[in-house]
């Protein structure tokens, strides 16, 4: 803790005489590398699966070993589980860094990795064999999600015991990351049950689809961003810590009740129209705080040459974080709020508009952040070469262009669908056939995205390879 304070003070430029002390590498941080490596690998496979699915949508009679309905399920399974595995690694890494000590049990963390990987892979294998449970985003067998829950339980126990070991020196970032993991567990558990009542089934599903992304992962990534900004000299520890619990509190309450915008039409009372629409506004506050903090940090870092980011590794991480902020503001907040207005949602709900929002908000906000964290963790102790850095920036650019392309194509398709099918009442299939050019454009943008994906993963692998012997 003391060491870390010294470190952050040095980086923030208030005590320029202090040189950066050599940071200790904890076992937790070594173990977190395998989580991050698994996560980025699954992300690379996801883009292949997604691209195949997108092609299947536009090419009639495309032969495929896995039918579309299970292929899409695998794509969504990846979308949910790779950020989870990456998050587990990030939380261990940054908790050890924040507290400047070892976690309670590195051995448990190793076991947990085995558990989460086995059950995640089982989800994909069973779905490939056409065995599933048919709940969107949670298509795998319930028992497998129980296994994922077990991994989360191990993580929660390990982290709580870690914090408990020295109750008087819990930093806000470490605390909210642990609470984030606890929430991931609590929100997943109701989803291993079977519900006969479709309304309750839909509601419980959104406890993962919405609340994992817009609440639990917000907490874990807020911890990561806070730690990164302090270490990179973009923010002063005291300032960040002053607001972190408030930000986290808003993320929790705002996240919880804004689930209402997913409840609108599933058979609940109209109270949820009001709650969902109004509380969604609250969700934007933490985003504004984050953007403000970044803006001030970057401005002061530019103005002051001694504190600016020098390291290419930190710069590349920052590019990934800034990409995420872009979609936090555009895809998640502005676009999200627009379609949250009940009168708008009534028409756009259940069209490709929602799909556009899902891609921009899910990968845009959360995916980029987990990638940033995983890159940071796996590249510890090495700097990218000039060519490697350039390739990394190009990869981030390709991912952004691909994502914006996919989002725009789906958005146009969604608006057309909304107008022709929902407003004018034309035949569903007739309208669907008109959407083919836009879905084709989505495939092209998706190809661009996949290219960026592979290029980035290659850079991350290279960083991992360089540091595999001695990540310090």
């Amino acid at each position, binding site marked *: 803790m003391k060491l870390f304070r010294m470190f952050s003070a040095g980086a923030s430029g208030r005590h320029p005489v202090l040189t950066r002390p050599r940071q200790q590498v904890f076992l937790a941080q070594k173990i977190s590398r395998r989580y991050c490596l698994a996560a980025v690998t699954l992300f690379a496979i996801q883009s292949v699966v997604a691209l195949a699915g997108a092609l299947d949508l536009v090419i009639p009679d495309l032969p495929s070993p896995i039918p579309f309905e299970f292929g899409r399920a695998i794509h969504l399974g990846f979308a949910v589980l790779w950020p989870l595995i990456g998050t587990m690694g990030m939380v261990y890494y940054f908790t050890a860094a924040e507290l400047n000590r070892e976690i309670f049990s590195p051995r448990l963390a190793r076991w947990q990795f085995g558990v989460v990987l086995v059950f995640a892979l089982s989800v994909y294998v069973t779905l490939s064999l056409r065995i599933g449970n048919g709940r969107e985003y949670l298509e795998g067998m319930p028992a497998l999600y129980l296994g994922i829950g077990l991994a989360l339980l191990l993580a929660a126990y390990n982290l709580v015991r870690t914090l408990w070991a020295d109750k008087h020196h819990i930093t806000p970032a470490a605390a909210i990351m642990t609470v984030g993991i606890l929430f991931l567990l609590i929100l997943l558990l109701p989803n291993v049950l079977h519900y006969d009542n*479709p309304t309750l089934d839909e509601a419980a599903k959104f406890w993962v689809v919405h609340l994992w992304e817009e609440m639990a992962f917000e907490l874990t990534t807020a911890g990561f961003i806070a730690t990164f900004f302090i270490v990179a000299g973009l923010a002063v520890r005291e300032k960040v810590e002053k607001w972190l619990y408030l930000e986290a509190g808003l993320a929790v309450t705002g996240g919880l009740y804004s689930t209402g915008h997913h409840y609108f039409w599933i058979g609940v009372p109209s109270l949820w129209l009001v709650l969902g629409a109004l509380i969604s506004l609250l969700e934007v506050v933490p985003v504004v705080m984050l953007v403000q903090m970044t803006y001030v940090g970057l401005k002061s870092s530019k103005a002051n040459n001694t504190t600016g980011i020098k390291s290419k590794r930190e710069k590349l991480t920052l590019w990934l974080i800034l990409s995420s902020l872009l979609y936090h503001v555009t895809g998640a907040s502005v676009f999200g709020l627009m379609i949250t207005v009940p009168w708008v949602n009534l028409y756009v709900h259940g069209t490709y508009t929602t799909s556009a929002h899902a891609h921009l908000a899910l990968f845009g906000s959360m995916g980029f952040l987990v990638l940033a964290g995983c890159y940071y963790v796996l590249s510890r102790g090495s700097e990218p070469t000039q060519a490697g850095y350039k390739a990394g920036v190009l990869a981030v650019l390709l991912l952004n262009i691909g994502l914006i392309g996919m989002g725009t194509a789906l958005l146009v398709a969604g608006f057309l669908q909304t107008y022709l099918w929902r407003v004018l009442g034309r035949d569903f299939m007739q309208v669907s056939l008109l959407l083919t050019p836009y879905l084709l454009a989505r495939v092209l943008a998706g190809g661009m995205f996949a290219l960026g994906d592979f290029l980035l993963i290659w850079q991350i692998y290279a960083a991992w390879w360089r540091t595999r012997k001695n990540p310090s």
Partner: protein
Amino acid sequence: MPIGGKNYVRIIPLVIPAIGSGGTLKLRSFLILSAFSLVLFVAVTLLSAHSPVPISLQAAAGKRVWQRHNCVSCHTLFGNGGYVGEDLTNIVTKVNPPQLVQYLVQPPVMRPNRYRHHPALNRTEAENVVSYLEYVHTIPTLGWPPQPEKAGDEP
């Protein structure tokens, strides 16, 4: 103490116990706030999700068929799911149940494919899933899906 001017700032920590010194939350308050929000949220959700009409055994069996065959990847219910096929929330008002069963037992080729058929079900599965769709239709959805302005008109 007069309330007004800058003095009101000082009473905020007294009024809202969750806010401590310096205008920020403390860990304990954050945990209490989070736990309270979660419990209240889950309670309100459970109360809201209570169904006025209990689901029949056949419809419940149909829901399991719906899930086993991953129908949600292509079709939406309440607008949630895939967009390849049509929304099925109110399909029983457009196609009568025996026709739906027939469609599922002997599925036709799906447009715009020329060879690929809709996945097939056996008769019992088909009857169960149609019973489930009939049940879904009875759930009040606050006016969704919207009624088209010129329903039936060809542009």
